């Protein structure tokens, strides 16, 4: 009964691993696995020398760190505030509303961005025009997109992590709060000295999971927001989007494989290191 799963992962994950050999060849789509000309490390060398690899790495890691830390901190804050609400139906309603963006597709997200920011009739420029200000061409401003991408990431994912934190808050025993109340702690002290420390283990688990996939950016998010808009690559290109473009747009198969392999290897080493460090500090939190 386990067989389908084994075959599935063999086809979907293990066989493609053999394909990393393309990274060392000058591959085009007509040649088969082993008759493509072998070029050694030249693909990597090119990626490195052109500065592509460094830029992609920095972008990928930078965005992910921002996502992880901002995302978690905001989710904790929102979960705590939400848990303090007294009106039951209001609490339920707002939680549902904040969870909603998680359910819509990234294509809808791109429609939203188009609606708000497109130059000719976007909502932003309509608003600016009403105040007599000049329209802004957001699509020509690479730096703005750093914030937009992070903003929309938070918009889409906050509800999800908030629900997880909310669940752990509900799990905290009332007795702690009662005891603190009797000792005269006001509500901010109770939150700071009881709720926050109690959320630590959830936070650490989520953090570790996300650190492991730090080299895999949110491909959907970036691709749907940026697409093939070359003006913005400097600040918004990540490994995933680069690989996808090389495969579907510029057909640099060898190069794309090389970038993908670099991503996998780097990610692998990162997870191993993180896991090793965690195990040294506290065995309970280790991933495996």
């Amino acid at each position: 009964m386990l067989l389908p799963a084994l075959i599935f992962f063999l086809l979907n994950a293990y066989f493609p691993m053999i394909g990393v050999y393309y990274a060392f060849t000058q591959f085009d789509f007509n040649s088969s696995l082993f008759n493509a000309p072998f070029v050694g490390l030249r693909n990597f060398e090119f990626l490195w020398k052109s500065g592509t690899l460094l830029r992609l790495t920095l972008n990928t890691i930078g965005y992910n760190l921002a996502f992880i830390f901002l995302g978690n901190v905001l989710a904790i804050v929102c979960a705590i505030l939400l848990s303090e609400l007294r009106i039951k139906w209001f609490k339920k309603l707002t939680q549902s509303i904040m969870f909603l963006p998680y359910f819509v597709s990234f294509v809808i997200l791109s429609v939203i961005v188009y609606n708000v920011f497109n130059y000719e009739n976007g909502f932003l420029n309509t608003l600016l025009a009403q105040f007599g200000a000049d329209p802004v061409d957001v699509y020509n401003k690479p730096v703005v997109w750093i914030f937009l991408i992070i903003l929309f990431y938070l918009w889409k994912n906050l509800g999800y992590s908030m629900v997880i934190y909310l669940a752990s808050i509900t799990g905290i025993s009332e007795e702690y709060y009662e005891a603190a109340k009797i000792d005269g702690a006001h509500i901010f002290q109770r939150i700071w000295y009881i709720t926050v420390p109690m959320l630590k283990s959830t936070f650490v688990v989520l953090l570790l999971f996300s650190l492991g996939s730090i080299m895999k950016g949110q491909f959907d998010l970036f691709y749907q927001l940026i697409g093939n808009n070359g003006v913005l690559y400097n600040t918004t290109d990540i490994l995933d989007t680069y690989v996808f473009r090389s495969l579907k747009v510029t057909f640099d198969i060898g190069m794309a494989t090389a970038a993908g392999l670099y991503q996998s290897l780097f990610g692998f080493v990162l997870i191993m290191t993180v896991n090793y460090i965690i195990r040294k500090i506290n065995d309970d939190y280790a991933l495996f």
Partner: protein
Amino acid sequence: MQIKDDKYTKILQIIAYVVVILGSIACLLPFLLILSASFSANESIIKDGYHLIPAKFSLEGYKTVFRFPDEVLRAYGVTFFTTIVGTTTGLFLMTMAGYVLARKDFKYRNIFSFYIYFTTLFGGGLVPWYIMMTKYLHMTDSYMALIFPGLMTPFLIILMKNFIRSAVPEELFESAKIDGAGDFKIYWRIVLQLSMPGIATVGLFLALHYWNDWFTSSLFINDPHKYQLQFHLYNVINSAAFMANMGAGTGVSLGGDLPTESTKMAMAIVVTGPILLLYPFIQRYFVKGLTIGAVKG
């Protein structure tokens, strides 16, 4: 002390309500923008831009979408088909795998768990996978290409395994075995019945994935008749946006028979509709499932 306590609590209450209300508005506003635009007259959008409330109310966007309903309906059909087939097949395979891995008397479960888990640690990357799918499995332009890649994920299998382990006590396996039930019968009659909340959660994750998928279409499908709904929408938006940008650069309007602004937004609403309608009902299960998963760690 009591007076001070009240003051702080009051402050926190105010902060909480303000933040939560602002957050909710921020989450809803974008949907309102699209909704309003979909009900706006196209000329008014082009002349005055998008508004939060339609400057001039009109149904022409929806009329255009449904004047030639073939494409949308076909994309709907593809998405419905892949969602239903993918979710049921995926659930079947993942519960089976989860069941086997949850059985403590299965000797090799650690090896196979690692076999599955390892794929999250290291992979060949997108390109070798793409070549595998197209050149060796010949999946280009097949419905199989839309369904196959999403069937199982290590994360969901492990989630399933934990659900089964917590829902079905070990002794039940043994007593069923003594009563003469085979492994498959135990799975079908006992495990599936007892782990319904887990199945609902994993099923929702799967269904959501298939419903929102545009990526597999963009990789493997060349035949527009087999586009998924989201990819269809993506094309409508992007071909228009691209043309508009070209037009802006050259000073030539390439308007013509391209989808108009209100039509695009109406299309977005038509695509999102089912989720927004089902959302109030499924959201509860999602929260429940996530909660169980989170407490389990």
